[in-house]
């Protein structure tokens, strides 16, 4: 992890979504050489050191900029299908485990509470019942006698910006 202290502008772009972690104690791309360097296992996109806890962020943009309009319906259906079938949940869970294992085996593990956030865009106002069901599925295998807390949530940019206003995000048009 980067040394403690407010670093330079830490603005990252992933799948057309920009996140600004300048206000964090530190923030890295988990798989980059000047981050954690995880090229071994599937892992999360970003590891952020907040004041008292860690934020692990995985970004999923099922409608990246430049996607032709005629493909949007199919992409939306595929996204909803992935939510309902559990394949997205399995993928997210795998990335959490991959990140945990990589950090442990490379001596970089930091046993502070972790909030694992799946940032998904775009969402519809009517998606909340489905997202709650996904939240429940994400959490159940992650509950355990851990030394510190692990919490999980899936949300869109609107919720992210409302709750993490110190780390603003934006989607490319």
């Amino acid at each position, binding site marked *: 992890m980067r040394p403690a202290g407010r670093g330079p502008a830490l603005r990252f772009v992933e799948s057309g979504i920009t996140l600004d972690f300048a206000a964090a104690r530190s923030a890295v791309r988990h798989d980059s050489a000047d981050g954690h360097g995880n090229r071994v296992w599937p892992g999360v996109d970003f590891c952020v050191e907040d004041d008292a806890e860690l934020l692990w962020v995985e970004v999923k943009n099922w409608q990246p900029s430049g996607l032709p309009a005629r493909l949007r319906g199919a992409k939306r259906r595929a996204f909803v299908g992935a939510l309902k079938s559990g394949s997205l949940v399995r993928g997210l869970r795998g990335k959490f485990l991959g990140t945990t294992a990589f950090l442990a085996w490379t001596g970089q593990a930091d046993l502070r509470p972790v909030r694992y956030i799946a940032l998904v865009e775009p969402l519809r106002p009517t998606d909340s019942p489905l997202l709650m069901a996904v939240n429940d599925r994400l959490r159940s295998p992650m509950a355990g006698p851990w030394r510190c807390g692990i*919490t999980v*949530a899936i949300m869109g940019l609107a919720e992210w910006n*409302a709750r993490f206003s110190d780390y603003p995000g934006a989607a490319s048009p």
Partner: protein
Amino acid sequence: MNRGHPNHERLSVRDFSAFREADLEFVPGINAFVGQNGTGKTHLMQMLYVWQYLFSREGDPDLKDLLQREFRPDHLDQLVNLSAERPATAVVQGCLGGSDWDIAIAANGSRNDVVPVMANSVPFDVRRPVFIPALDMIGHTQGFATLYDEYRVDFSQSHRDLVGLLMGPEKRSLEPAAAEALAILSGRLGGELALEGERFYIRNDLGSLPITLTAEGIRKAAVLSRLIATGWLSAGATLFWDEPETNLNPSMMDEMVAALLALSRGGVQIFIATHSYVMLKELDLQSRQTDTLRLFSFEGTANGTRVRMFDRLADLTPNAILDQYNSLYDRDLTRATGRKRTGATLR
């Protein structure tokens, strides 16, 4: 779409029940009332039911008596909106099969002052309406009719009427749409629905089970099946169903909605009052372009219930059901992130 049967076309209310002023235009297919408790959804359905019952001339009912038995107030002037400055008059105006009708209920110290006014001629082919209340009745048929007819009991007229309809004989043959709806529901009953004396049973290879021992969700399917089998839900009929989702497993919702849509395509005008997002979403997903579906949002305000009409679920606002899901989701995320939507951190 005019299907040749008298349908409820519109309803206007002034100072009635939870309403100061509301105007509704109905479709011949499915009309869904959506809103919080206490916004007057059931009262509007009851008023439509009462008036259609009167129009059907079944048993030559008296309007005041029918209103008293259905709404069960201490005094009929309690149907006048409580916020309306006394003396006040509740006015309910409707149109059934092209015939306008009015009811005025005065709250001016003369209790039970009810004036029915019919402006046009009464259509002669108005069917007796069917009202399925939220409370299960198919498990309470034994002795109920006699009890209701001889004693003052705290059940609405529609409860008594439903029991009477359920006890009727089955038709020898059904119209195609009714047969289709019945077939959809039959698989869920787990057997054949049979009436012995005044009690219903589910009969299968394992024996004969009183319906009182079945799940309430099964009983809901049984009520609809019986009404179809006895011919009460055929072309030209009107069905009012209060909270069809009560005690119904969400897994049964798709069949229930499929049956309702089949009935509506066969010429049954349907009114439902619902709190269920699953039911609304099933209607949205299963309806075809040729179906007529209208959603009415009922919103409580300082000036009485406000009613708005929508032809698509996506446009429904306010959507009290989705609002509740959003509230749950908001609290879920607050707990998971340790941060409120305002950005404030939980301590």
